[in-house]
């Protein structure tokens, strides 16, 4: 029986349901070094694979000689494109409708491209084998600058499609062109610009960077020749999609492929796509009959698997002289590298970049995106953001500041003047989205009050005067950003990956003792799903979260789902959990009605069971109902208590937030100090505030890194100059600012529990906030826009160009 000696508060606390700062279940094993990551998987007889990679950014491969490599002790095989052609796997489809070489087929198109795969008894022998493979290259002209990609005489990169006039997303207008994607009304937008009082135009670049999770991409493939079954342990954010794609391209029946994503050491978008390493390890296992492990090293990770961003956004805003925006026009040059390996829903070549109208009520807008090839690594993944949403947020938030500067208005005031108003929701944006809910004014004002915004501006004005008088060499910047995210892909009506609709799923099974297991189509990479998913169930059906085990990542046991990225887990799978739980609750109600001898409608839910309305002592708890469900269900009712839900959301969710950063920059050294960073997030219903704050801290730190120095940089010959943690900026505890978090709650009206997703918001809102702070600091010296990343050297350079340094 339920313990009725407890108060309602005590019963509720015992559940550790939604809203509770529940400590994480995962931490027990992680703090003791007992996580189980892919590189921890060891199988008898396991071999290791490693890549020969191209030193050139663009070259013809004249020959590959494996003779010496095959004589290296321990080396068993060297796989090349020729080997892969025998199984029709020299090329593989990308998620974006392009094809990508698995191993160099005649030429290489970016530095560190995979050329051959050496299989050996251990990782040292594999390395020896790699060093012994002889490859003869004939260098070709290199294309690095995206702005030169469409020149008539630009080098031809993709010979395989040189005569293809149509790509996956329509006509191609040049041999290095991938797609043109347009949204909005061009004529109406042009008209708005023609009659505008004020216009601004700026080319705003969002540089190339990389998600670089601390654990790189890796897999173990094991092919069982007797059963013709392939098992893959891998760092997969979307294990089910991997299984389906492997089935389709390797022509293996889907039930004979077992994909297991064990613990994952961070993903941030890097682990959504399919990489040559997975294909080569699988083929090597089939060829050798032994398990094969492939583990990427850090340099390989940074230079070969899936960069992010590289968007060059020419942005124009039209406005009245009072500061009311009347039109937005954006052209994006999108550098995809050598192959279009974006991890966006397939119909969205530029992701959801058309969220670029942001939080503002633009009556008209027009957007055109041109995707192009260059001699750089392929990709374009969503690094801790929904698909291209951080690029969009950066674009509009930087542009709004530039407009404010031109109008001589305060940037926060300009935002308040143009926000979509609470009564306008659901709001239809000029570029086609239906924003579900929001209260932007409240969030912005709360942020401004919290940091004493007006006082900060006064202080800044005084400091600027002091700077002009030569009393200080420090300038002060106040960065404001207000973002609207679009997450939770997504409605199957407009979101799929290679035809696979983007629903998600949950299966809950309660056991007779009132404990249970929940299996999901998502896959945590640090988000704490084992903790939070159980909290949703606890609140929905009154079983303590501690009694619910959450399991993800095994395609044999978990229901089909599209995985974890784009902040989609809570909006989509979180809804599936609630819906599955409600099915269980509905059956539980029938059982309770029978046992309490009343009509179902005479029952009411009370924390952890059903009570007869008006008769508080007549109560049946979920623990007892679970036992009854198996052992003495009502006549005619099937025994058992389990449910599954596949949830196809009716709409995306639209988290939002107001961020403010205060920064001081020494003009003589370019050294900056982040004095304050305040982040207010509205992610709707908050499931576990501790985890939300942790997500915000982490996302802000990644945003800080990106805005202030983290970059994948190429020299003019296509060499990556930031290919290790020596050169690629990952902040330590010393550089990382302290974060102040805050929130408002505007539940999503269409989500069963009103939750919206939060993991990526801080990256989306954080990058423009830092960049706006730097730009705001320099603005009084006459600059309108300084490109990211804002490292010390670039800050010093900016100060020098603006005449602030002698």
């Amino acid at each position, binding site marked *: 029986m339920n313990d009725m000696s407890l108060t309602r508060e005590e019963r509720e606390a015992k559940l550790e349901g939604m809203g509770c700062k529940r400590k994480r279940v995962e931490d027990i094993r992680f703090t003791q070094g007992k996580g189980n990551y892919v590189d921890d998987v060891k199988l008898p007889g396991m071999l290791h694979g490693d890549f020969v990679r191209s030193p050139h950014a663009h070259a013809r491969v004249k020959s590959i000689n494996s003779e010496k490599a095959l004589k290296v002790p*321990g080396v068993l095989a060297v796989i090349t494109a020729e080997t892969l052609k025998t199984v029709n796997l020299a090329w593989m489809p990308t998620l974006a409708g392009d094809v990508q070489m698995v191993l160099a087929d005649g030429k290489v198109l970016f530095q560190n491209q995979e050329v051959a795969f050496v299989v050996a008894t251990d990782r040292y022998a594999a390395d020896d084998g790699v060093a012994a493979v002889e490859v003869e290259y004939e260098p070709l002209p290199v294309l690095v600058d995206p702005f030169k990609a469409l020149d008539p005489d630009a080098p031809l990169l993709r010979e395989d499609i040189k005569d293809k006039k149509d790509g996956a997303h329509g006509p191609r207008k040049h041999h290095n062109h991938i797609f043109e994607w347009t949204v909005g009304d061009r004529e109406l937008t042009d008209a708005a610009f023609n009659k505008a009082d004020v216009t601004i135009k700026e080319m705003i670049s969002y540089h190339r960077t990389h998600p670089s*999770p601390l654990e790189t991409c890796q897999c173990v493939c094991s092919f069982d020749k007797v059963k013709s079954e392939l098992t893959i342990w891998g760092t997969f954010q979307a294990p089910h999609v991997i299984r389906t794609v492997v089935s389709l391209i390797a022509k293996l029946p889907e039930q004979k492929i077992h994909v297991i994503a064990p613990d994952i050491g961070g993903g941030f978008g890097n682990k959504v796509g399919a990489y040559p390493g997975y294909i080569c390890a699988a083929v090597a296992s089939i060829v050798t009959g032994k398990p094969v492990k492939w583990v990427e090293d*850090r340099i390989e990770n940074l230079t070969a698997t899936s960069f992010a961003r590289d968007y060059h956004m020419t942005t124009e805003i039209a406005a009245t002289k009072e500061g009311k925006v009347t039109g937005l026009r954006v052209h994006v040059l999108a550098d995809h590298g050598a192959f279009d390996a974006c991890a966006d829903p397939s119909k969205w070549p530029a992701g959801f970049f058309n969220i670029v109208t942001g939080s503002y009520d633009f009556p008209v807008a027009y957007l055109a995106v041109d995707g192009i090839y260059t001699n750089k690594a392929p990709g374009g993944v969503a690094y801790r953001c929904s698909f291209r949403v951080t690029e969009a947020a950066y674009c509009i938030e930087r542009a709004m500041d530039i407009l404010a500067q031109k109008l001589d208005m305060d940037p926060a005031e300009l935002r308040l003047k143009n926000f979509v108003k609470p009564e306008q929701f659901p709001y239809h944006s000029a570029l086609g989205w239906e924003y579900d809910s929001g209260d932007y004014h409240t969030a912005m004002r709360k942020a401004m009050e919290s940091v004493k915004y007006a006082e900060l501006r006064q202080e800044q004005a005084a400091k600027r005067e002091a700077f002009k008088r030569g009393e200080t060499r420090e300038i002060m910047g106040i960065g404001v950003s207000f973002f609207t995210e679009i997450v939770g892909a997504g409605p199957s009506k407009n979101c799929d990956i290679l035809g696979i609709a983007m629903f998600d799923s949950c299966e809950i099974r309660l056991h007779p003792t009132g404990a249970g297991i929940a299996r999901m189509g998502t896959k945590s990479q640090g988000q704490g799903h084992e903790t939070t998913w159980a909290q949703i169930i606890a609140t929905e059906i009154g079983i303590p979260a501690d009694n619910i085990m959450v399991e993800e990542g095994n395609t044999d046991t978990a229901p089909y789902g599209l995985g974890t990225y784009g902040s989609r887990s809570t909006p989509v799978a979180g809804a599936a959990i609630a819906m599955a739980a409600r099915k269980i609750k509905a059956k539980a109600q029938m059982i309770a009605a029978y046992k309490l001898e009343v009509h179902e409608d005479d029952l009411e839910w009370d924390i952890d069971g059903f009570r007869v309305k008006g008769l508080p002592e007549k109560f049946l708890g979920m623990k007892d109902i679970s036992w009854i469900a198996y052992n003495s269900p009502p006549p005619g009712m099937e025994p058992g208590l389990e449910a599954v839900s596949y949830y196809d959301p009716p709409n995306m969710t639209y988290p939002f937030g107001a961020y403010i950063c205060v920064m001081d920059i020494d003009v003589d050294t370019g050294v900056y100090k982040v004095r304050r960073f305040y982040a207010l997030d509205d992610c709707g219903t908050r499931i576990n505030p501790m985890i939300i704050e942790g997500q915000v801290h982490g996302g802000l730190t990644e945003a800080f890194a990106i805005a202030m120095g983290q970059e994948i940089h190429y020299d003019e010959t296509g060499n990556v100059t930031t290919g290790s943690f020596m050169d690629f900026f990952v902040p330590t505890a010393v550089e990382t600012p302290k974060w102040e978090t805050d929130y408002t709650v505007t539940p999503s009206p269409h989500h069963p529990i009103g939750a919206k997703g939060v993991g990526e918001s801080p990256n989306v809102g954080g990058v423009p906030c830092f960049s706006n702070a730097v730009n705001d600091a320099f603005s009084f010296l006459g600059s309108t826009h300084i490109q990211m990343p804002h490292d010390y050297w670039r800050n010093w350079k900016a100060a020098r160009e603006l005449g602030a340094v002698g």
Partner: protein
Amino acid sequence: MAQAKKTQVSMTVNGQPVEGLVEPRTLLIHFIRENLQLTGPHIGCETTHCGACTIDMNGMSVKSCTVFAVQAEGAEITTIEGIANPDGTLSALQEGFRMMHGLQCGFCTPGMITRAHRLLQENPNPTEDEIRFGIAGNLCRCTGYQNIVRAIQYAAAKLNGTEFKEAAE
């Protein structure tokens, strides 16, 4: 390039004497992970930057991805697997990381806790700045460090028998 003659190494790991045959070039992290099957310490960069492979060797924090196994001959080593209390309960640091949400994906955590373990031996009462400087050799991509700092403060307070005051939000 050809595999060299193997060398016998012996050391003490988490209080237990261990030995094995290794190539001279075998890295300590590989010896620990592959030969000893202690997979707590991780490999994140192989260039001494990230600290995921941090172990405690002869009373110092060491990044085992850039130490040869033969260099650890005779050494006293503690890995994350040896950090818990003798009765198997979580140590103050492990508990602190859980209580203060000092970890997310868990990949940096073994190295981070092993480093913090040494830090608190060197400086039982560190200031926040000292903690931040003290763990600067360990990268975390998930947490933004703020809660790691609090986790270490929690552990320091518990070990010192003082009251832990949560830093103001």
